[in-house]
């Protein structure tokens, strides 16, 4: 469904992403993890058309989408959410989601009705007439998800939708994301919350300082010494092994 080949991106002198390769197959939940500043968001931005890569290609659903504008990519069925939520603050929740729905639906009334349906999927049906500017962080994260979902994507890129949520909120969101996948939407997500990564993903990629250092099933990847060191610094793997495990 998604093929990323040889992506490079530098900001000034900084190598944000170096020769990144990955693929996401249809119907799966794939995750991308890595420490802060690893280049995860940058890679998402390149895939979704927000940034131009210096080299490399992105193929979605069999066609080359490298360098295409974001709105076009979204219309093809690939949508991203933002790590730093970007609500339309002076609109209501319903109107926010309807903006996404308009990608497929021309009529205002139908788009608003569709918005209400999508809100239900993410548990926002009670907040439809609330102003997006008044939402809590958890509400904003859900709204970000709902809006993207309303565009009826084939592939959904989620950039840290769990960040800033408490344990209960995370617990509530996990089945929602699984439900989306079960409805036929492939999911590619960036996440720091390990509990979410472990329980959701079928496959995991690890990015560190712009380089893809590991990939595989989440439980294998997260126990690999190289990954643990990337997260916790040199020698950490050994220390943790002594302590008898832990979660990063």
């Amino acid at each position, binding site marked *: 469904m998604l093929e990323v080949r040889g992506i490079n991106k530098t900001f000034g002198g900084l190598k944000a992403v170096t020769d990144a390769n990955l693929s996401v197959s249809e119907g799966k939940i794939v995750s991308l993890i890595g420490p802060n500043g690893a280049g995860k968001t940058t890679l998402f931005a390149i895939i979704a058309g*927000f940034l131009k890569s210096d080299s490399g290609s992105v193929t979605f659903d069999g066609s080359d989408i490298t360098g295409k504008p974001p709105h076009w990519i*979204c*219309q093809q069925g690939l949508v991203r959410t933002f790590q730093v939520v970007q609500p*339309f603050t*002076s609109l209501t929740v319903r109107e926010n989601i309807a*903006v996404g729905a*308009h*990608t497929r639906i021309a009529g205002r009334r139908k*788009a608003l009705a569709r918005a209400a349906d999508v809100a239900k999927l993410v548990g926002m049906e009670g907040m439809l007439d609330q102003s997006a500017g008044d939402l809590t962080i958890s509400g904003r994260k859900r709204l970000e998800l709902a809006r*993207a979902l309303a565009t009826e994507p084939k592939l959904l890129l989620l950039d840290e939708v769990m960040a800033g949520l408490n344990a209960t909120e995370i617990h509530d969101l996990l089945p929602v994301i699984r439900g989306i996948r079960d409805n036929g939407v492939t999911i590619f997500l960036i996440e720091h919350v390990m509990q979410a990564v472990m329980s959701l993903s079928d496959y995991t990629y690890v990015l560190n300082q712009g380089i893809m250092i590991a990939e595989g099933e989440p439980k294998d990847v997260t126990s690999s010494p190289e990954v643990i060191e990337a997260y916790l610094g040199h020698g950490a793997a050994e220390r943790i092994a002594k302590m008898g495990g832990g979660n990063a």
Partner: protein
Amino acid sequence: MNERTRLFGWILLLITLAVVPLFLHSARWIEFLEMTLFVAVLGQGWNILAGYGGQYSFGHALFFGTGAYIQALLQVKFGFSPWIAMWFAISGGVLVGAFVGYLSFRYGLRGSYFALITLAFAEAFLVLSRSLKSITEGGQGVQLPLNQDPEKAIATFQFNFAGPFLSEYGFYYTIFFILLLAYGLTAWMERSRFGAQLVAVRENEDAARALGINAFKAKMGAICLSAGITAICGVYYVQKFLFIEPGIAFGPAKSVEALFAPIIGGLGTLLGPLLGSLFIHSVGEMTKATIGQALGGRPGVDLILFGVILILVLAFLPRGLVGLLEAAWKRLTGDRNA
């Protein structure tokens, strides 16, 4: 305030505007209402781009002047019927809008850059209209011949000698009709996908693009619609005053007039520009009658007052008079989801 109450309010307001002049047998008051509606339309033109689209223009005179000059010149120089010239005037305004929009939006100019570009274009047209004497008659302006034949009143789109009813009310109902058109278009826009996408772009362009919106296209649509409506104001102005000159057409006064009403009335709302214009003109009349008189009829007092009002509104009424009205309505009805 729900949809129904709102619709009812609009019908009431429009009926009032339709019949009120019939009871005013004073040319001065009819003229007052005409100018109020004129600025309400001019303001709505600006509001579509700035209020709904978030692109603040400081040079809307550009579109007004383009419409006005095309309307005047096609009649005077080429003998066009005003009813034909009108379509060229509107298209001309839209084309200039599309050109300025293309230059600005293609290269992602936003905020003050866009404001400056529009201002610069208006100034450039001001200079051009002064200097291209062979086309525009330069600084002395273009004068339309006055038609005194009542038979030709409609054909010449001039109502000064059009018989009892039309000579009194012709221009009022013309601008009233234009208002219905402009506000009807805006109301349609508010309820359309185009409008929703435009507002999304105003609120957050990156988020809008991520959700499949072609921001460039949305902004182009807005500037074309906005410029077209503003150009119609130019057409109206020329037919009413039978005269246009560079300062009136492209000078900053019209650009400022276009943004005052919607900002005071309520940005990005259908009612805002009309409410703002009513307020400004009423206050203007009152100041002229009171303080202006006391100071010996010196002009400009009202302008100072407008400046003060603008600052007060910006400081205390972020949603303009419409916001105030909605709050008052909420209080009155105890309606929680107004």
